[in-house]
Structure formats: C-alpha cells, structure tokens
C-alpha cells in the first residue's frame, strides 16, 4: 500500500468523508456499548428521539446548537488560515461578561438598544481577548495555540471570581439565598433576545439567526474579498505572502479579532437568548469552545457546513442532557463526539492523500484527466 498526496480533491469525496466518518463512528461507539453490556440499537434510538423527535426536542437541539455555531465559526475562520485559536472558550466567557455588563448598565432602555449593545459589547470583548494571543503571535512570534489555551483558564477563573469570590457588579446580592448560593444578577427584561416560533413546537432563538447571518458574512469575506485571499495565502505560505508584499501581521491580528468576535457574540447570545444572567457554571460545564473545534473540524472549516454540523452535534449534546441518568449510559455523548472526530481526522487522510493498493503505484492508470 502506498500513500501519495493528491493534487486536487474530488468534490464528492469532500462530502463523503464526513458522512462516512459519522457512520463508522456509530459502528465504533456500538462496539463500546456492546463491550460494556448495553444495547446499542436501544441507546441510538433513545438518542435520536431525544435529539429530534420527542416533543420539544428540536427546539432544545437548536438551543444547544446555537453556541456551537458561534464557537464553530470562531474556530473555522482561524483554523482554515493556519491560525490555531483554541481560545474560543475563554473568548466566549469574556463576551458573556461584557454583554451582561452592558445589559445591566443599560437597564431601562428599549429592547433594540439593549440587544444591539449586547452584541457589540460581547463581540468586542471576545475580539479583545483573542487579540492578546494575536499580538503575541504577530509581534513576539509566540505560538498562539498554547497562549490562547492558557487564556481560557484565566478567563474562566475571572468569571468565577466575579460571581463567587467578590461582590461584583454582576453578582446578585438582593434575592434571598444570594449569600449561600452566589449567582449573577438577573438581566433586565428588555435584554432578553426574541424567539421566533415556527409551528407549535419549534422555537428558533434570535442568536441562531445572528449566527447564520455571521456565517454568510464570513463566507463572503473569505471567498470574495482581498482580506480573505491574503489570509489564505498567509496560512499556506507565510514566506510567499511576505514576498508578495502582504502585511502578514495585520492579517494575523484581523483573523484573530474576527475569531474572537464570533466567540464573543456567542457569549452575548448565551446571556440574551438563554441564561438571562451571568452564569459561570452553566457557561463552563458544556465546554462550548472545545466542542466548537470539533464542529469546525468536522465541517472541514467551511462556514456553511459549520451550521449544519453544529445542528447534529447540538442534537447529540441535547440528547445527552435529556437522557442523563435514565436508561442511558453517562459519558456516552463525550465518547461518541470523540470517536466521530477521530474518524473524521482519519478520513482526512483520504481527502488529502490518495491510497494506492498493490505493490507499485505505476501500474495503475490515471483516470481523472
């Protein structure tokens, strides 16, 4: 067997590999379930029902998919140009902190002002947090992977500090029990983002629409603008980009800021769409930032596919919460997400390389010409 690099990847393969990966992952997960004495068919049926067909399941899946759209887009815009921003987790926290802050400060204002201010503040805070590794990468040549990862924990600890260990602007001090069980101050009613009902049991959160619009903007930005072209060249070959006179530092900063902005708006959406207060545990427990990287990788960093994959992975996460403890093994969702991603990563080999069977590759005729 020989492995050679492909010049071009056939289009059908780009779609077939992710779908095949999910199918193979289901087989592997079934083996895990069988080996531990569970019935895989039963588990999968419950999973599918809880994700998509139970009453209200589809709306909950959209709720779970919304943050993954944002963090998936955040990872996709950076990863596809070779910048490994794995800090969407922390950028989302900073976005949530800023958005909750302006919502509290603007109490008494109308809903339009509130929502616009939350989106802007969340995006700006996320972008600012992402610019720390961005600047270090652009001007000190420091690897952004580790710095963005470390900053996730700094942001998480800052978030905990605001609610659990100090009397901050965000912390609720008035309601009974606030002393024993610290939590965020409830946001004003006007800061609740609207929802759109389709039929009787499908509720679409406003944040999901924002994410879809942002996905479209990102797609245009990368396919149709000079910025996108330069970013792609820099990702492929920084040296070629510099010789061509491109401003690589500026491009790195812009991509990091865009990536952080997307995650930050995701944090604002958490406040406005779902939580209506600054909720450190609720924001940290699901690991939206890391799951967003799974989503982006499965979507092969294409913004449009990110939205689709977020829906699937969101369904899986949602089913995990819904089924916890009943007749459904704990931890299975993480195991399945991991296996899906392993298969997708393995399948990537087929996208990038051609596997020839047989002793020598020369005997095989070239077909695609």
């Amino acid at each position, binding site marked *: 067997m020989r492995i*050679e*690099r492909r010049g071009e990847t056939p289009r059908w393969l780009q779609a077939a590999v992710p779908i095949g990966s999910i199918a193979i992952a289901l087989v592997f997960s079934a083996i*895990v379930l069988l080996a*531990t*004495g569970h019935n895989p068919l039963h588990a999968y049926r419950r999973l599918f029902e809880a994700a998509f067909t139970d009453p209200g399941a589809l709306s909950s899946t959209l709720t779970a998919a919304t943050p993954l759209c944002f963090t998936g887009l955040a990872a996709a815009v950076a990863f596809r140009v070779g910048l*490994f921003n*794995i800090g969407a987790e922390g950028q989302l926290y900073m976005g949530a902190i800023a958005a909750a802050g302006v919502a509290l400060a603007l109490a008494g204002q109308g809903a339009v002002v509130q929502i616009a201010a939350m989106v802007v503040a969340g995006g700006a805070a996320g972008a600012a947090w992402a610019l720390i590794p961005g600047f*270090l990468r652009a001007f*000190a*040549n*420091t*690897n952004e*992977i*580790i*710095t963005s*990862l*470390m*900053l996730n*924990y*700094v942001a998480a*600890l*800052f978030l*905990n*500090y605001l609610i659990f*260990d*100090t009397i901050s602007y965000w912390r609720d001090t008035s309601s009974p029990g606030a002393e024993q069980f610290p939590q965020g101050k409830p946001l004003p009613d006007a800061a609740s983002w609207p929802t759109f009902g389709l039929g009787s049991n499908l509720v679409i959160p406003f944040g999901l629409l924002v994410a879809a619009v942002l996905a479209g903007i990102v797609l245009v930005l990368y396919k149709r603008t000079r910025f996108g072209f330069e970013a792609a060249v820099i990702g492929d070959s920084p040296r070629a980009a510099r010789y061509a006179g491109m401003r690589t530092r500026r491009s790195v900063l812009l991509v990091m800021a865009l990536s952080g902005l997307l995650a930050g708006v995701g944090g604002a959406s958490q406040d406005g769409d779902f939580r209506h207060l600054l909720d450190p545990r609720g924001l940290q427990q699901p*690991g939206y930032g*890391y*799951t967003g*990287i*799974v989503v982006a*990788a499965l979507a092969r960093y294409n913004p449009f596919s990110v939205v689709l994959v977020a829906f699937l992975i969101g369904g899986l996460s949602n089913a*995990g919460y819904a089924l916890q403890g009943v007749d459904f*093994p*704990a*931890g*299975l*969702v*993480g*195991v399945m*997400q*991991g*296996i899906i*991603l*392993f298969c997708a*990563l*393995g399948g*990537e*080999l087929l996208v*990038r*390389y051609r596997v020839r069977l047989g002793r020598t590759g020369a005997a095989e005729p070239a077909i695609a010409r």
Partner: protein
Amino acid sequence: MNSSFGVLIASSAVVYGTPLLYAALGELLAERSGVLNLGVEGMMLVGAAMGFFVVQRLDAPSALALSAAIAVAALAGALVAAIHAFLVITLRASQIVSGLALTIFAGAAGLSSYLANDLNLAASPARHAFSPVLPQGLQDLPIAGPLLFGHTALVYASWVLTVAVALYLARTRPGLELRAVGEAPGAADAVGINVSAYRYVHTLVGGALAGVGGACFSLSITPQWLDGLTGGAGWIAIALVIFAFWRPDLCLVGAYVFGAFSALPFTLQARGVTVAPELFQALPYVMTIVVLVAVSTGAVKRHLGAPAALGQPYVREER
C-alpha cells in the same frame, strides 16, 4: 509567617505537585519526540478511573493492590494515548485537533465518566490508598520530617523518575536520538533512526505517565471517585512543560511551584485569611504565557525553546 506555616505550604505543594510532575514528565517525553498531546487531562482521568477500579475490586494486600492499580492506570493512559499516536503519526492528522478530541473522548464528560458509572466507582471511598512509607521516627523530625520523609511512595518514585528521565535525555543514546527526532526528523531519518517508532513509544510512555498522574488523585489525594476529579491538572501539566523549558529537572521545581499555588488558598483559608483562590489558580497560566513569550525569540529559542519539529507530522516523501 512562621516556619511551620512555610513547612505546611511546602509539604502540600509536594502533594499537589506530584500528579503534575508525572503528567508533565510524560508530556515532555512526547513533545521531545515532536508530538504535542493536548489530551493529558483525558488520559489522566481514564488512568484515575482504572487505577481506582483495581483497588476496589482486587482482593490483595494493600501494597500489591496499589502496585497493580498503578500498573493498570499506566496501561489505560497508554491505550488512550495510542489513539492519538495512530492518528497523528500514521495518519498525519492535526495534533491539536486530535489532542482536543482525546480530551473530549476520555475526559470528565466522556470515557472516564462512562467507565466510572458502569463500574460503579462512586459508590464507596478507596479500599486502599497511598500513605507515608518511611518510619514514624523520621516523619516526626522537625521541618525535614513533613518536607522530606512524610510522603507516599508515589512522591519518592516521581523523584527517581525525574532523575531517570534527565539521565535518559542527556546521557543515553536513545535519549540523544529522541532529541534528534524532535528537533530534525529529516536528519534523524537520514542517519537511520526510525522516526515513527520513537514517536509512538514516547507518546505511549507519555500516556502511561499521565495515567499514573491521574491515579495520584484517585489513590492518594482524594482517595475516592468524583467525575472530573483531576480538575484541570492535565492542562496545568501542559503549561508546566513549557514553564520548565522542556527540561525534566525544571519540571520538578515547576511542579512544586504550581502545586503550591493549588495548595495556598486552602492553607490560608484554614488560617482564617481569605484570599480569592482564583488569583493563585490563574498564576500558573499567566506565568506560562510569560515564559513562552520569553523563549519565542531569537537566541533564547535555540537553547531553551520548544523542540523544532513539535506539532509537525513527519512524512518522508515531503521532506
């Protein structure tokens, strides 16, 4: 601050630093071969779960049960690491994405929780746990007692391991070849070193040590099962490798510095001093960023920086 307070901090720094030391030494070996594994947290948790399982189910004298538990924890960590090794070495997948996938797969909401639930680990505290090994007389000595002689076998083994890893890297032929693989895999391949084999072995050993590090929690620090009981130690271990400039001797120092940050808030609280624990908990991450920036430039990078081929797949045909 009196001396007994300092001794208390220092001895608990050793306790909290030991799992970091094991995991960081393992990650260091993997990174020296050129493989970045961000799945440390996941490997630690699976090691912690399997080690704990052995202690609960194996009917054997304490010492034997604990040794078997450590062996199984190491094996479990290595098996989880094998997934990463196969994906990034043989299939040339992205090390970053694969490592994160490993943490999601094995971590607090993945395999470790699945196993713990299936094996019913949370039901009871550990039947055997590591306790101080040296004679009581030595432990009762002032200052040196709690600092040096009051520890468990895990601590002393970690000291031996640190020396062994340092000697291995600096004084043995395989250690030299390992460094060559991590710095210049093309050159290593040209002189007949099997790059893939080195990377596989050290990634697996790295996983095994992460598994042992996880078992430090379930068999010594906590001794019971809680989902996600490592509480992010795996990420601190990754930071520690950088903080220690990829050197085992500095890993030992760094592990205890970072361990002290974990221990300080509790110790201070017990004395009635309230400090926000987040302040100390954030220090390892901030210090690591500072160190990373410092070693990112010019001449410093060559002497103290990351292995040159870290994170890059090696493909002979594309050299």
